């Protein structure tokens, strides 16, 4: 479904991503792991068009998407959440998700129908799925950190993506929130057959959820494979897991 090969991106002199490769098949739950600064976020920004790669290829469903702007990539079926909660603070929780649903349905430029009567059921169903239905009228900016992260995921779901990319979905969450989020992600993957690409520092989350793990270091892909294989890999143990 998604195939990334030899991707490189430099900021000034600094090679943030330097030969990253990645394969995501339909139905996979792929985790990207690596120490801070390994280039995980940069890799996701390249895939979703928020940054342009210097070299390498990104193919999604057989089409090269490396040169497309972010909104075009989203329209082709890739939605994402951000590492730092990235929401619409002055819109209500409901409207936050509604904006994404409207966009997915090609209604964003409609001038003549009232928003308050559109895509209500779809939006409501997403809020229920993630458990934010009781906060629907609250301003998104007034949510707790954990709820903002959940809202992030809800916004991404609004696009009805084929591939969902989550950048550290549990960052900054309490252990209970982490557990709940983990459960949510599992449930979403199971019930909707979502294909998921995520990065995460919590090894428990990673080995609990992922069907495939990609290990990154200094912008490079060390290895990608099923969890047992990655856990057993001596290079990975030395480079990363050993330090846990």
């Amino acid at each position, binding site marked *: 479904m998604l195939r990334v090969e030899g991707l490189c991106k430099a900021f000034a002199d600094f090679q943030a991503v330097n030969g990253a490769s990645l394969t995501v098949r339909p139905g996979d739950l792929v985790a990207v792991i690596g120490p801070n600064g390994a280039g995980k976020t940069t890799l996701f920004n390249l895939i979703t068009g928020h940054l342009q790669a210097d070299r390498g290829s990104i193919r999604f469903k057989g089409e090269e998407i490396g040169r497309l702007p972010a909104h075009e990539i989203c*329209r082709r079926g890739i939605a*994402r959440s951000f590492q730092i909660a990235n929401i619409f603070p002055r819109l209500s929780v*409901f409207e936050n998700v509604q904006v994404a649903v409207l966009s997915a349905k090609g209604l964003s*430029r409609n001038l*003549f129908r009232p*928003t308050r009567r559109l895509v209500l059921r779809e939006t409501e169903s997403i809020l229920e799925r993630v458990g934010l239905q009781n906060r629907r009228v609250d*301003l998104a900016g007034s949510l707790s950190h954990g709820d903002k992260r959940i809202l992030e995921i809800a916004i991404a779901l609004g696009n009805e993506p084929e591939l969902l990319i989550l950048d550290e979905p549990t960052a900054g969450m309490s252990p209970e929130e982490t557990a709940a989020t983990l459960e949510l992600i599992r449930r979403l993957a199971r019930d909707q057959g979502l294909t998921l690409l995520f990065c995460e520092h919590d090894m428990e989350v990673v080995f609990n959820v992922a069907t495939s793990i990609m290990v990154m270091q200094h912008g490079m892909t060390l290895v990608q494979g099923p969890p047992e294989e990655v856990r057993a890999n001596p290079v990975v143990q030395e480079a990363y897991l050993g330090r846990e």
Partner: protein
Amino acid sequence: MRPQRTVSPATLWALGLWLALFFAPFVAGRFAVYLLGVILVTGLLAMSLNLLVGHGGAYQFHHAAFYGVGAYTAALCITKGGLPAWAGLAAGPLAAALAGLLIGSLCIRLNKLYFGMIQISLGSLLWILALRWYSLTNGDDGIHGIPLPEAIAGPGGAFACILAAVGLCLLAMHRILASPFGTTLRAIRDNPQRCAAVGIDVRRHQLAAIVIATFFAGVAGSLFVVLEGSVFPDMLFWVYSLEIFIMCLLGGWFTFFGPMLGAAIIVLLRTLVGGMTEYWTLVLGVVLIGLIFFLPEGIMGIGHRLRLYRRRAAGASSPRENGHAAG
């Protein structure tokens, strides 16, 4: 069980006020009616700016330029183009929207601050044209005695025409802001990066918003011609853009009617200061400083804050804030 926004009391009040105002020429003096007309035209202009800046988060620094384009187009079409007055008045908003499209497409790729700066430069260019191209625009004398159809030539007819047009424009703007386009526009204001990530073409959306806002600025320009029967280069002067900005600030960004209220206050203030026009910029400066220190969210902002405060005092355990979207 959803964020219902039924007809708000503010909308009902506005509707009632609008209808009542049609009787103004029968009860109020000539000058009062004229002043009401000025407030309506200026308020429409300020509200069109608010559509872009308050709801769209754009850096529209020289909105008056489009007001001027609308007014001059109407005036020139009627006096030099020999068009019937109605056609000329309709051409005003179209020309303003076209100017918005051109200047907008030029600037939209730049970052916000450069966007504003280039806009000031291009707008000032138009001002110079109006000021110096004597053979066409009569320079700083402006164009006077623009012939208008009899129905709207007198003060009563002009006022009714302005009131009707402003009412229609406000209705249209309200609907636009309540539409998916408007919701998406507010989302772009809040977080353009996130908007791109949910599949919204941010630049195209903003350009469309510019065209819409400049169209309404052009309507205000045409209505100025109806009101005054003349146009002046000062309408395009950048200080006037600052004045419109202050009206929005005074009434309250993010609110729908705020800029109209701000326009009313500024227009009345200018009438009071009257003869001492050389002190007008000073007065404006004082108003601006006072606003920044005492009323950062404008007059309508106070109302909003009071409501919040009352709701909290009423014992809501979790602080619930409601959107202050349109209305």
